[in-house]
């Protein structure tokens, strides 16, 4: 028996589903708008790839941070320490495998880089677990204390890194197969930037798959919107948060390796410097939104590279300017999460 089959206007009316694609269009619009400003097409191609590569690395690092905020409203200003840790671990692993990284063989290069990435992710994830348990857990729901204690945690972490690896910058040369450029007509694109784009896309695809195709992803997306309801349905949001925090820390470690190779130098301060970009990205994207974080990262990467070429002085504050413009247009970011 159907108890509620009476047709009513309210039941029949539903707005047509129109995905919000406008933020997606920002990327091609920005890139196309830069062509006449840059002047040379080959230079534009080089800058665009550089921007996309930088954006992809930022996305890898920032994706965990935005989910951590979305799930538990935790502002982790200590995220940068996982980047630094990953990068320094890479110097140790790759330093011991110099024979492999200096080989002409791509396979040998990969067999050196992949363990370095795995070690960085493993250790950063483990340290992330301790960070969450010892530093963040006592200050759930206390934003001001979170900011203070996570910044303090990062300072302590960086000092510990200095104790282990020293306070000096350490070179992190690219493996031989990743050096140099590929030529597309007159445009030169650095091989490592292509690698960064491929790795970034792979991380985004994996994350997209988990979030949209698995129940775990469904729980994360639901938790970002209303964690109390997720608990009322019988799921332990605390465990989910720990898992996301560890995964986010591991991704920051991976991003640290990639950023270190991108810069070819590692310094104890690198995490703190990137931290600023991370917060710009997750604010632009909409706090808690992975899709917004992806677009925000690419926008930041492109703007930094175009501005660096066109007006180096403007480049110093170009990303702040980008954030201001985006927030004037969409005060809650490009893809605000429908939070309760």
């Amino acid at each position, binding site marked *: 028996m159907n*108890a509620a089959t009476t047709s009513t206007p309210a039941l029949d009316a*539903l707005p047509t589903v129109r995905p919000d694609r406008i933020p997606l269009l920002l990327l091609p619009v920005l890139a196309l708008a830069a062509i006449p400003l840059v002047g040379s097409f080959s230079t534009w191609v080089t800058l665009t790839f550089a921007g996309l590569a930088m954006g992809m690395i930022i996305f890898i690092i920032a994706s965990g941070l935005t989910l951590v905020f979305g799930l538990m409203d935790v502002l982790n200003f200590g995220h940068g320490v996982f980047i630094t840790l990953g990068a320094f671990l890479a110097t140790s692993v790759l330093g011991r495998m110099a024979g492999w990284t200096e080989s002409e063989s791509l396979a040998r290069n990969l067999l050196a880089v992949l363990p370095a990435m795995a070690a960085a992710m493993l250790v950063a994830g483990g340290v992330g677990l301790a960070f969450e348990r010892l530093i963040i857990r006592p200050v759930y729901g206390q934003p001001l204390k979170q900011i203070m204690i996570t910044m303090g945690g990062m300072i302590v972490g960086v000092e510990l890194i200095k104790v282990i690896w020293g306070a000096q910058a350490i070179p992190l040369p690219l493996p031989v197969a990743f050096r140099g450029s590929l030529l597309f007509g007159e445009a030169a694109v650095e091989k490592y930037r292509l690698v960064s784009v491929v790795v970034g896309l792979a991380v985004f695809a994996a994350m997209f798959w988990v979030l949209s195709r698995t129940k775990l992803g469904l729980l994360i997306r639901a938790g970002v919107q209303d964690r109390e309801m997720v608990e*009322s349905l019988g799921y332990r949001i605390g465990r989910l948060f720990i898992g996301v925090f560890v995964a986010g820390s591991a991704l920051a470690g991976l991003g640290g390796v990639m950023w270190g190779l991108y810069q070819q130098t590692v310094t104890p301060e690198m995490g703190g410097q990137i931290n600023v970009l991370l917060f710009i990205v997750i604010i632009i994207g909409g706090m808690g939104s992975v899709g917004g974080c992806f677009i925000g990262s690419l926008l930041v990467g492109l703007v930094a590279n175009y501005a660096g070429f066109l007006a180096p002085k403007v480049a110093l504050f170009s990303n702040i300017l980008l954030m201001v413009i985006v927030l004037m247009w969409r005060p809650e970011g490009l893809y605000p999460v429908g939070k309760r």
Partner: protein
Amino acid sequence: MSAPLLQLDGVHTHIGAYHILHGVDLQVARGELTVLLGRNGAGKTTTLRTIMGLWPASSGAIRFDGGEIGALSTPEIAHRGIAYVPENMGIFGDLTVRENMLLAARGAKRVEDIDAARLDWVFGLFPALKRFWQHPAGLLSGGQKQMLAVARAIIEPRQLLLIDEPSKGLAPAIIQNMIAAFRELKQTDTTILLVEQNFNFARQLGDKVAVMDGGRIVHAGAMADLAGDEGLQQRLLGLSLAAHQ
């Protein structure tokens, strides 16, 4: 007479510095629909949230199906067989109707794992959900969201449903749909504790009634007795049923 499915004895709840529940004593019989009535601020929502562990009791006992649940976490309470529909419905607006239902079906990893017969039964109760299965839940109307909220609570068998003001803000036609759906739900012997302010809605469904005021239960008995006694309605609720018809 069998033991009540849910029993609260002298439950006190504090939220920060505020003392909200002042010794709530309440019994919910198995297979019956008990309505919790009371004015705004009487403590009805706090009672449901305390049972669910969202605002833990500061003292008193909460027994469910023979076991003490007052010290359990919200997910543990849900696993004991209690489903909760909050006043704001708790819909995940960015997820589709399908995804909302899949989350509520704890035992299912995919929609295909949900008991098909039960899903059909839910669609029978709330046909709109089938029609808008792939739509983002945030786009549903208020009535449709309420239907989804209740549907989530019953997609898997639960011993007790806690439902907070299901008629709030709904158009009269939708309220009639909800009443029809709850009547069918009652036929399945599901135990329900329903918080309501709409007395006309409540009296059509309730087997038992408890009235709250000032964080305490001030009256408990059969709904028929309260519905038939205008003087009692006036004294407890400050209204008469006639005024609501």
